[in-house]
């Protein structure tokens, strides 16, 4: 059945997100929080994250254009961003954030800029993947989206 196929597809999609380390166990925590009272909880949280973090991304971008670089400010932004990203379990994005902060700490502007580019890539990739995931999940039906961890 198509429905079953979709379910399987969804499961595969989900698993690959973990396998490829786009997501970590925090995402599972979110899934576990989803219930009848909040049947779309995970999607809501992810949407909220992307909306809120977009403005942080922009602030960082602007700050990176200033000369000279204000590392403590950059670090502050990134700290916030990292905290936010940890909320949905965005593993790769988080890793890039940590690296970025390291470069800030040592005052390596080049490193910061490079890392930020990478971070944005990961950020956007994850966003696309999650969007596809939720779209499928909605088709499959709310009960199917939360896959209990093995």
């Amino acid at each position: 059945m198509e429905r079953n196929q979709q379910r399987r597809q969804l499961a595969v999609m989900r698993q690959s997100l973990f396998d490829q380390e786009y997501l970590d166990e925090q995402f599972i925590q979110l899934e576990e929080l989803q219930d009848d009272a909040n049947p779309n909880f995970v999607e809501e949280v992810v949407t909220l994250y992307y909306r809120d973090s977009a403005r942080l991304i922009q602030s960082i971008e602007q700050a990176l254009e200033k000369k000279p670089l204000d590392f403590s400010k950059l670090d502050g932004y990134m700290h916030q961003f990292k905290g936010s990203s940890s909320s949905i379990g965005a593993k790769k994005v988080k890793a890039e954030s940590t690296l970025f902060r390291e470069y800030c700490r040592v005052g390596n502007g080049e490193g910061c800029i490079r890392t930020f580019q990478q971070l944005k890539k990961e950020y956007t990739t994850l966003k696309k993947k999650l969007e596809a995931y939720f779209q499928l999940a909605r088709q499959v039906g709310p009960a199917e989206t939360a896959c209990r961890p093995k």
Partner: protein
Amino acid sequence: MVESGFSSPRADVFPAGLRVLVVDDDPTWLKILEKMLKKCSYEVTTCCLARDALNKLREKKDGFDIVISDVNMPDMDGFKLLEHVGLEMDLPVIMMSVDGETSRVMKGVQHGACDYLLKPIRMKELRNIWQHVFRKRIHEVRDIESLEGLEIIHMTRSGSDLSDDGSLFSEDTTSAKKRKDAESKHDGKDFTDLSSTKKARVVWSVDLHQKFVKAVNQIGFDKVGPKKILDLMNVPWLSRENVASHLQKYRLYLSRLQKENDTKNSFLGTKHADSPPKDSAGSFGLKNSTNIHQNDVSCGSYGFPVSNSLVQNIDISGHEGDQKGTASVPGADTKGALSVDVPGPHKATCSQMCFDRSFAPIDSALSYASFDSTIPTGYPWSGIPEIQFSQEGKPLDLDNCFNQLPLPSPQRHSQTEYRQPPPPISSRPSITERDVSTSVDVKPSFDDCRGNCINHYNPFPVQKSQTLTSQGFESISATTLNMKGQGVSLNCLTDWEPVQKNVNWGIGAPFAPLDEDLQVYWLQGDCYAMNLGLQNLDFIDYNDPTLFTEVPSLFYDALRFDHEPLFDPAESSVIDQGLFIA
């Protein structure tokens, strides 16, 4: 955002219903935490700004059990919020951050966080936060007991000097002790007895506590901070943490007393219609009824829980001119708090009676009076004379005071009714001023005081407030400074000094102007103090098997006394700012 509605926690199913306030500027985390906490069956309220959080906390001081806050927030440093909450509300605070660096965690603990969680936070970590609430309650109860213990000691010491009063004391002492023992047993599974638990912590002896109080007074309640106190106290082995935690308890104690006062006050029927108390009415039961003229002074009603003593509501509105002293002295046996409206001078800061050693403890008279059930009815204000409870060891030289108290002479300001000569104090053990300070122990006599009412140490030295009236007597140290009023009471202390000159305090001072005798003029805003009603006694019901459930009320009560402004809001803002400005 979930509005918890500030309902009382369901103690019977603790920890379910635990009321949590979550503060985080990250909306994603706020949503997640809210959901997680709800899954734990907690009542959640969320805030994305620290200031909002503080406002919420202040609005309903007993509306929350625990606060969880992020460290990095745009409007206020999380550590600062932590300090405010700890000082003002004495709630357990958990910090959160994505940064787990040791130095940060250490800083959190230093600022008083009871836990520090790293993001991403797991459900299981949140499930256990109730332990912090529980732990605090238990510690608090124990601390109160230890404080009471101090008071009991005081009382017993002087109790022996008293004739019939002695019996009062001994009864109280015994009962208090019984309560204490019961309490120890009650929560004593892990804690052996009070003394042994004390071993692990600093024992706040009478002397030490008095040093503490003195330092607090000196600094000014609104500016008080553990470090400052510590510096002033000059006790080498004492740490800042010791002082900080003691300060918290002290505030709690004061606020409880205030609450007690509140309840008691409600019994007092005196209403002073002519001067509708502005805000104080709200807060101090009866006392509020006293006229509190907000215009220039803030009248605080100072109420002491008085079991059957008289007067409970002495509204002395002696204030610069426009108050009418409606000192109504309710008949004796009202168990109410002795409320004295003391309009304070404009700058009055402290409306509380400060039992400060340094001040002529007229207050002690007051306080005594209130507690003393033997206070003759005739003296409205007289609570003072009754220093039955001579605070142990501190002979308050009330004799002088009272004897000299002019009887109701035309008051400058208030027409307090109680212009009666205070009952001869001679029967009382004389209490020297200095000693008075700690003792205003209100323990006592009130039958109604459930529990130990005022066993807590008198944070402020008793001041003889003989005449405070027009002079703008400022600080009458109330034994209980309520928490909120901390700033307030301190204020009064600070202002006290200048006022003191004007006021006829104490011993030997001609109390001429004193007819109001005990008109305690509270400086504005700081009236909180007085309202330490017996309300707070509730929690002291150690024998209560449902102690556990009581405990929360205890701290809720303590915190409950909050914003009801006693005085002119404009004035109170000073106080408010003093301590709370972020």
